[in-house]
């Protein structure tokens, strides 16, 4: 049993509070080993209800009734506790499984061949809340290691210094993929915990100058250079996304 098991099980059973839940979901999105462990623990518990029902069927009811102290016989009523738990678990699993399936489909590039990668990122960014990345507080060594890993995958030289942005705190960096191309994600939070992502997609795109747009609540600023697409995205005014992008464009 690993240290994470207890939290994973609480997630499976829909017993984690909101903060820990979103933090764990973010970790799961970035950690394939952790996801496998989640699946294993979830599947291990799947046959439990049926097995316990089987045990219930073995109860020697006639003998037990006979031993009752002259109680009046009543028709048995099934308490809803188990059914409720199954429903709750099913809903969480359904939502999370759907999210995982969508995530897996996205990471294997299955979400529509013509879909702009920035659209895919924007759709996922809508799920993130102020609680998603804020709990992550890496030290300098971890930040450097994560950036080095991501940088190697997308072919860019990434260091804590080169990706540092004013008013934003680095929380994590991880790898996804879109249409078979590596997609690096660097997640920051502003002082309120609101997430800002800097994404690098090694998609062999032709050079394109910086441009910006709004999608719903999100501002996007993107450019392409050196065979890589770059994107800054977050809940902020468009001008700020452009300013951040301009800083990164000079350094990355």
């Amino acid at each position, binding site marked *: 049993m690993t240290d994470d098991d207890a939290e994973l099980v609480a997630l499976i059973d829909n017993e984690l509070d909101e903060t820990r839940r979103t933090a764990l979901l973010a970790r799961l999105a970035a950690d394939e080993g952790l996801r496998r462990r989640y699946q294993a623990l979830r599947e*291990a518990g799947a046959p439990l209800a049926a*097995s316990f029902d089987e045990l219930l069927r073995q*109860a020697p009811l006639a003998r037990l009734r006979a*031993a009752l102290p002259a*109680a009046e016989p009543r028709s048995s009523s099934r308490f809803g506790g188990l059914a409720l738990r199954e429903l709750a678990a099913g809903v969480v699993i359904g939502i999370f499984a759907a999210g995982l399936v969508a995530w897996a489909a996205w990471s294997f590039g299955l979400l529509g061949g013509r879909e702009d990668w920035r659209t895919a990122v924007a759709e996922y960014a809508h799920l993130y809340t102020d609680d998603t990345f804020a709990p992550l507080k890496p030290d300098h060594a971890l930040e450097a290691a994560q950036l080095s890993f991501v940088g190697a995958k997308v072919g860019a030289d990434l260091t804590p210094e080169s990706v540092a942005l004013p008013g934003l705190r680095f929380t994590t960096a991880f790898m996804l993929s879109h249409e078979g191309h590596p997609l690096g994600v660097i997640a920051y939070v502003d002082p309120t915990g609101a997430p800002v992502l800097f994404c690098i997609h090694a998609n062999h795109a032709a050079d394109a100058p910086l441009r910006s747009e709004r999608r719903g609540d999100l501002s996007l600023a993107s450019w392409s250079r050196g065979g890589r697409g770059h994107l800054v995205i977050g809940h902020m005014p468009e001008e700020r996304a452009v300013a951040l992008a301009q800083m990164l464009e000079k350094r990355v």
Partner: protein
Amino acid sequence: MSEASRREVRAGLEPSLARLWRYALVLSRARDVADDLVQATCLRAIERADQFVPGTRVDRWLFAILRSIWLNEIRSRRIREGGGFVDAADALTTDGAREIETNITASAVLRAIDRLPEAQRETVLLVYGEGYSYAEAAAAFGVPIGTIMSRLAAGRAALAKLK
């Protein structure tokens, strides 16, 4: 209040019998002890019916009585008498001598549950078999919720090894 209490307790006994027996079997791992434990629980419940608050869950109340009798009377007596615990292998899937006919998956799972330490076994039953929330299980056992989480995780991890 007394009359309502007694009425609700009596009405709640028969519908709870099978589940009380299941709980007793998971705790004691012995079918004869389970029978006795259920009977003792029903007697104690009627004796103490005045203490039951009408409108609350009688099944949970009965479970608490069963657990108390197991811990404070039967279990401790067995230890005192030096019998310890008959290491009844596969107590949940055999009837003394012969294998109870059941489906293969349930049988494998029940054997695995049977091998869990008592605390994990009991927690897995109450949470996954009886639908206790983590908070309810923590209150029932008088332990922190973190302990419930660890026990469930250990139980699931043991079951995961079945594959």
